[in-house]
């Protein structure tokens, strides 16, 4: 700890009970993108369903675009920093329930 603290302890950091999982890789990024509505669940039987990586790239681009980042489609450092920023828990994109529930039920 610091040798001396502010008189009102305003510089004393309360012991952190637990830390949010830091987004560090593609998997945790997928979780983030899904949670905030960037993934577009699609119908499995539709032939032009994007492959998993295409869906991830498309979701990533959308996040980068609304966050004012360079739209690279690559999980780069700037995107990682943006994803780890403190933020509101309300999704950015509305999740289309009909498609998602259809997809989930079929699975």
């Amino acid at each position, binding site marked *: 700890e610091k040798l001396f603290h502010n008189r009102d302890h305003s510089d004393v950091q309360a012991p952190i009970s637990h830390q949010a*999982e830091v987004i560090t890789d593609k998997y945790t990024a997928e979780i983030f993108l899904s949670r905030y509505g960037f993934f577009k669940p699609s119908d499995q039987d539709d032939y032009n369903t994007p492959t998993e990586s295409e869906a991830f790239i498309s979701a990533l681009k959308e996040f980068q675009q609304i966050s004012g980042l360079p739209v690279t489609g690559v999980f780069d450092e700037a995107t990682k920093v943006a994803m780890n920023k403190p933020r509101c*828990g*309300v999704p*950015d994109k509305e*999740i289309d329930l009909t498609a998602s529930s259809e997809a989930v039920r079929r699975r």
Partner: protein
Amino acid sequence: KRHLATLVSRSRSRHKRDLSESGYMAFSKKVLRWRLIGEGYSSQLSIEEQRYILKLAFRMWSEVSPLEFVEDTRSPLEDVDIRLGFGTGRHLGCNQRFDGTGQEFAHAWFLGDIHFDDDEHFTAPNAGSGISLLKVAVHEIGHVLGLPHIYRPGSIMQPSYLPNESGFEMGWMDRKAIQHLYGDCKGRFNTVFDWIRKEKTPYGEVVIRFNTYFMRDGWYWLYENKNNRTRYGDPVALQVGWRGIPVDGVDAYVHVWSRKRDAMYFFKGTQFWRYNSENDQVFQRDPEGHRYPMLISKGFPGVSGPIDTAFYDRRDSLIYFFKNTLVYAFDVEANSLARGFPKNIKDVFPPVASRDHPDGNIDAAYFSYTHNAVFLLKGTRFWQVVGSRDRRRRPFLPRNGLLPHKEVDQHWFDICDVHPTALKL
């Protein structure tokens, strides 16, 4: 893929809403009750601090929208429109766990529940480090009112937290977003005036400055003409800024300003006060020792209160008193009514467009130095008086004619009431 699917299915169980681009009107009533729930107090700030910050957050939305908010600590919880609480991990019966320090700091449900992650280091305004509870609260309240995320710099509704800029206030975009859902702020005023004051420059010159004030009942706003909005933090209670005038409001303000005179008056009912701009309060007595307030009929022979409103016209050195459908022009030098007065308002201020006229019972008569024009306000409308510049361009216009009416809130923006309980923070 299975894990993502469960995530998607779990999010399905939230109560979803139609988050169209501009949001939706979550409440149909104007006065909304809120409460910081007892089982949801934060462990980081005192309860009073939490309630003060939340009250301020609600006030900030009220200052830019027709909505008013009142803290309700007694009614049954189901009667409370917006319920707020702090929690960590699994909290307050919510189906979306908090994730600990970092990332998600709060969320809002469209039925009026707001949860703050107490693992975050929430701080009071201007406390420097940490996450400003005020900003987060304003953001989440915006969601509960029906606003979606707005991805524009400067908007409080951006999803990511905005680190401490000095003096966080409601920007133009957020104002228009909430007004798009709940409408503009409308209402009649008791009086509107430009307050003139003299200032000395560093070089000793005396310069004239003015501020525009709108008064309604027991509170007032300073209006910043160059910014097209009221002063941040307004309205304020009358007695805060105008000591000695009636706390429940006035009928008129008049500034008699000529080469020989510089006197400011407030009128209410049958009485009037002279105001001392040097020490910013009413005069107790006049030079002859008579106590204020005085009867209007004594100070302005021929005129008797209560009046609707009044203004001083520097062009002809007359005070125009409005009362029902009559106008009393008072000659300050002669200390008597001008010849031929009182007259019908339509004779003094004829309509330029037929039948487009307030017909009397004016709320406020306002000479604006910004616009160099006189405005007659009634209800939510105003009529601009034809000036000399107008008549030079269009000579056919009648003298002191009233141009077609316009809406007050389309000319002076975001003049919004707050709940009386929120007037004093």
